[in-house]
């Protein structure tokens, strides 16, 4: 979420009448090129400072308007206010963590409240030997997990393993071969969410897959490839 004040961005074009405004708009245009290749909001972030300054220049001759826009943006971006109008899953600052900042709440408690995958940290540390690689269908909070994780959609190797596992689960055959593809890729463990496509088949046919369950936490199961 970048705040509704940026809906006023077209007004920034009025900064073209000012030499500094023209430079700012040019810089903003250059930094917004990645946004044309990927429409996710985060790709707009590099351009926003330039556009925001250009908007400020455009509105500078309208007394009272800049403070009004600032207050409007501050109000609508306040964490508690934001929750009333934006999507529940939108990336945003959800609260002001005063207790965490003052260390009244421990780091691990704070992270566990905010990062669901943090619950996997201890399970992986005890079940997966150091240096082993793990295959996962979904992205993980790797900053907190001290093992290499191959995520399905993040590499060609990951995609190959993911497709093999999913096809085997769908066809109800070739499970062992699919597991061996993962193993030959250096992955000795699988990290499977309950919602993943293969989760049910894997859980019900562990011997056919050639896997064994080593840990289960927070809706995620860790399997060892035999």
């Amino acid at each position, binding site marked *: 979420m970048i705040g*509704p004040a940026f*809906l006023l961005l077209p007004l920034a074009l009025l900064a073209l009448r000012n030499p500094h405004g023209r430079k700012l708009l040019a810089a903003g245009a250059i930094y917004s090129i990645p946004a044309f290749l990927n429409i996710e909001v985060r790709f707009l972030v590099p351009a926003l400072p330039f556009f925001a300054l250009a908007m400020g220049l455009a*509105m500078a*001759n*309208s*007394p*009272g*308007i800049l403070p009004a826009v600032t207050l409007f943006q501050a109000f609508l971006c306040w964490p508690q206010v934001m929750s*009333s*109008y934006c999507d529940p899953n939108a990336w945003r600052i959800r609260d002001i963590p005063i207790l965490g900042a003052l260390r009244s709440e421990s780091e691990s408690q704070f992270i566990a409240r905010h990062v669901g995958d943090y619950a996997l940290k201890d399970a992986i540390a005890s079940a997966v030997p150091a240096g082993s690689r793990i295959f996962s269908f979904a992205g993980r909070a790797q900053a907190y997990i001290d093992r290499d994780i191959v995520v399905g959609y993040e590499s060609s190797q990951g995609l190959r393993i993911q497709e093999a596992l999913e096809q085997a689960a769908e066809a109800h055959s070739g499970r062992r071969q699919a597991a061996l593809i993962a193993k030959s890729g250096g992955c000795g463990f699988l990290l499977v969410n309950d919602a993943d496509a293969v989760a049910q088949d894997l859980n019900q046919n562990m011997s056919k897959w050639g896997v064994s369950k080593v840990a289960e936490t927070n809706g995620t199961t860790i399997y060892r490839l035999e």
Partner: protein
Amino acid sequence: MGPLYTVSNKCALAVVLAFLALQVHRAATAPVSTGEAYLYDRFVRPATREVLAAGLPDRDVLYSLLEKRSVGLLHVSPFSVRLPSLLFGILALFAVWRLAMRGFKTAWGGVILALAAATSWAGGWFVKADGTGAAMALLVCAVWLAWERRYLNLIGICLGLSIAAKVGFWLPALFLALAILWYWKQWWEWIDRVAIPASVVVVILLAVPASHAGAPAENPPQLAGGQTAHLRSALDALRADAGTKPIRIATVPSAEPIVNFYRAQHRANNWQRALLAGSAGHFDYYLIPSGDSVRAGELVYRDADFAVVRAAL
């Protein structure tokens, strides 16, 4: 401007005050219409979070916000939901007076003001709980400020607020803005003092509600003035009959917002929110047009427009 307190001006002021008193009386006593009750029930009564989640398009955003404040201060009543409109009526008359005093001789200024008061009384724009009166008043203010070339920023703000008060006023506001440009003939000043403030105000007030208005607009059929009075009598009869026991009421689309408004006004906590006839579940009372076939049950009230039927156990 000529002298302010001439005999003719004093007479005009007396006429204006008389019309204002009539407006206040009408605002306090006239039964709420379906549109007024709908605006209250869908956009003022619920919390902002619920309003946004419902996704209904609100065409009177500024008025809804002011009505929320008014109802918060004075509790729900026909007067409290119309109070913002009344105040905008006074603002409109003030702007007309300033315009008239500037554009005409003193005596004529008073006459024009009295005529404006009479016209607003006849039109009833400032005794309706919707954004029409507010939007009109703000446009008149914009004309006055543009003519006097004072508080230039307020011109754009008035135009923006006018659109926020009633979205349908975007076209008159646009034409007025272009007329001001033609009158001033100063492009950059118009941009800075009219276009930018108006755009900013519109975005501030309408961006979030408009972005959430994904549901199709509801247009409940409107009741005529006499029908709303009959509906109020029917509700009084229903309330007397039901007493304090918990009840569920089924009614027709044109009456449903008014029944819920009446429920809030009289704090009838034993009433569940009225639903449309045909909804699932058992109902204790049916409030239906008197022409409809009376359902199984006991007739509690009937007039030319509405009937109240207590359902058989």
